[in-house]
């Protein structure tokens, strides 16, 4: 295997749409890189922003959050609440010195296995370009300002 940086990504999925999209991607044999590990929640609304920070703290380089399309939430409208939280979280990450682009929100219905596979692939590439976050290592080295990364040059 090459020495190229391989990002690790945690993906939060909603039980009703995106987890089933992942099922469908599998059934249809759509390929995507193995850099992502999916964790099932009942709804994107369950996503506590702490979970995202926890993933970074454990060494994730990116976090993908997926849910039903607006208007299609199994729980009627909870994905809007997820959207609000993710927008807020991204601002918070920025002020903590983490590149907000390490977090991405994607809508995928149960029928969109192909779309989910494509979104995962492109997010993996995007995080690869951002480079390693290495929060645990930074925490060891820098103490308080653990997470701060250089985010001036954000690749497009």
């Amino acid at each position, binding site marked *: 295997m090459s020495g190229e940086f391989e990002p690790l990504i945690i993906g939060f999925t909603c039980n009703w749409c995106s987890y089933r999209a992942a099922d469908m991607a599998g059934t249809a044999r759509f390929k995507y890189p193995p850099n992502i590990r999916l964790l099932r929640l009942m709804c994107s609304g369950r996503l506590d922003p702490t979970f995202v920070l926890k993933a970074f703290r454990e060494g994730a380089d990116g976090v993908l959050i997926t849910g039903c399309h607006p208007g299609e939430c199994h*729980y009627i409208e909870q994905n809007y609440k997820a959207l609000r939280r993710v927008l807020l979280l991204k601002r918070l990450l920025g002020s903590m010195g983490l590149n907000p682009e390490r977090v991405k929100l994607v809508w995928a219905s149960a029928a969109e296995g192909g779309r989910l596979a494509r979104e995962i692939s492109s997010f993996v590439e995007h995080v690869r370009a951002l480079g390693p976050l290495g929060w645990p290592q930074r925490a060891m080295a820098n103490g308080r300002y653990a997470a701060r990364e250089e985010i001036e040059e954000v690749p497009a």
Partner: protein
Amino acid sequence: MTSANGKRQIPRIGVYVCHCGSNIAGTVDVEEVAKWAKERLGEQGVVVAKEYKFMCSSLGQELIAEDIRKERLDRVVVAACSPHLHEKTFRGAAARAGLNPYLCEMTSIREQVSWVHTDKILATEKAKALISGTVARVREHSPLESITVPINETTLVVGGGIAGIQAALEIANTGHPVYLVEREPSIGGHMAQFDKTFPTLDCAACILTPRMSEAGSHPGIHLLTWSEVEQVEGYVGNFTVSVRKKARYVNTELCTGCGICWQKCPKNVLDDKFEVGLGYRKAIYTPFEQAVPRFPVIDRETCTYFEKGTCKACEKFCPTGAIALEQQDELVSFQVGNIVLATGYDLFDARRVPQYGYGRLPNVFTSLEFERMCNAAGPTNGDIVLRDGKTVPKTVGIIHCVGSRDRNYNNYCSAICCMQSLKFAHLVKERTGAEVYNFYIDLRTTAKDYDEFYQRVLEEGTLFVRGRVAEIIDGAQLPGGDERMVIQVEDTLAGCQRHIPVDMVVLSAALEPRADAGEVAKQFGISCSSNGWFTERHPKLDPVATMTEGIFIAGCATGPRDIPNTVAQGSATAARVVSYIAQAELALEPIRASVAEATCSGCRICNGLCPFNAIVFHEDRMVTEIMTALCQGCGTCVAACPAGAITCTGFSNDQVIAQIEGMMAVAFQPEPV
């Protein structure tokens, strides 16, 4: 996990890795994964780790059950396919061995690993990571009891086409009451418009009308026509539904359906619904002769009285004084335990294919127009004639797949149009002796007796041209042309272009989801596929249920299908509903949120977050409570509570955090040795 005396106990976890034949084992080194789990997750409490060819088989399940008994396992992790396929299977196996089923968890190493990745080493490491996460998660589990809700024995059926009629009759025949809500003045749906039905050529009315009147007079069926569901609240077993009964302006207590009113009504209106624009009705009308119920409705939009304030011919002539021009819409509300949605389909608007000239060339007809024309009770009394109402065509072209199997409109096959086109070819031959051309892409005659019907139509001398019609040209525009149209098509069997002059064209238009299917789905809390049809819980194994407990779907609302299939689905929903009713109560997933009152600060941040109104605030004690029966377990309030007072079974903070830690404990690729 904590024991009764608060001491942390070491769990005894069994990990089971499935080969799924070669589905998983072909890409994931399952032996290595099992070995690794035993060695490296021992500290986490893994005492057994095994791999097996087919975990879901009875032998596989027995393997797990035996370990639960012999090894005293108190947690089980099955790494196999998606939990959406087999979670129930493995939880059942655990329960049979005496373990609380909610202490058994699955992780998907097929759909999420072996089927989507190709590199064996990386796939194996990912499988380990997923298992590690699930082991960490399952350690935090506690036994759960499923929640039971009582099932109200009344059922709501929405849509009175053949699917809804069938469902309503089957349920009502078991002695349980049904509300059948239909938005049109009569039940019957599309089938009421047809003349003959393939492949047996039974007369549609002869087989449908008895069913309609049975439904109309059944003591157990409460028919609400000219009505629409306005609101649905609640959950399986106990929905509260409110229905808007649109004003008919006819007192149904007094009306006998004698028909004098619509004979006397002076206002003729083009009927663009039932007669698809080929015939007329009055401002007070029933859509067709055998309508159920027999009571007419007044169409406010066209009635002279509602327009000008005078006329009242119907009121004058009604022998029973049933006309009620002051009537208002009425809201009725009732409770039901289950709901069947059988809202059917819309016909594709053929104007969207401009090169076929529908709406511009008078003698291009849609399939539904043609059905009405063939119908003896229809606008032409069953005569197949051109738009002038008298000329019998000498040549007829029938075009398949209009708006179906076409990436510009709908990718899917509309399933019924091949047979419907063959039926039309037969009817034209039988009634006019005209020459008939069928233009098809593929002929799909797969159901029982369908191909025999095709053979029969072939023998009758119908001509078949394989190819998608490029254009229907107005003959008058062609040099030397006449009033006939010219069908231009590439004959893909002969490999040549053909120009075929015809007098009449029939477009076999696609079946499409109802224009409001998305809104209806939202109202009832179910989902639609990307094409817009209602989504079934499982396309193969649970085709009439939806993701929402207590909501079932039947007929063309789930996708294009013929009448036999539609009726079978109607019966299937009835069986499902009656089985729920017979169980009297239903066990629901115990994934619910609850508030620790002692921790709740009374901030009320969570109060506005629940779409199911499960969160209530007690002003007196200044604390929030979650009503378990209403909570659907989404977890949104859990994530919002700043005091950490709300927790959610199955997805507590501890469970999710542990899973993240577990997943991240395995590197992307194995450490070099």
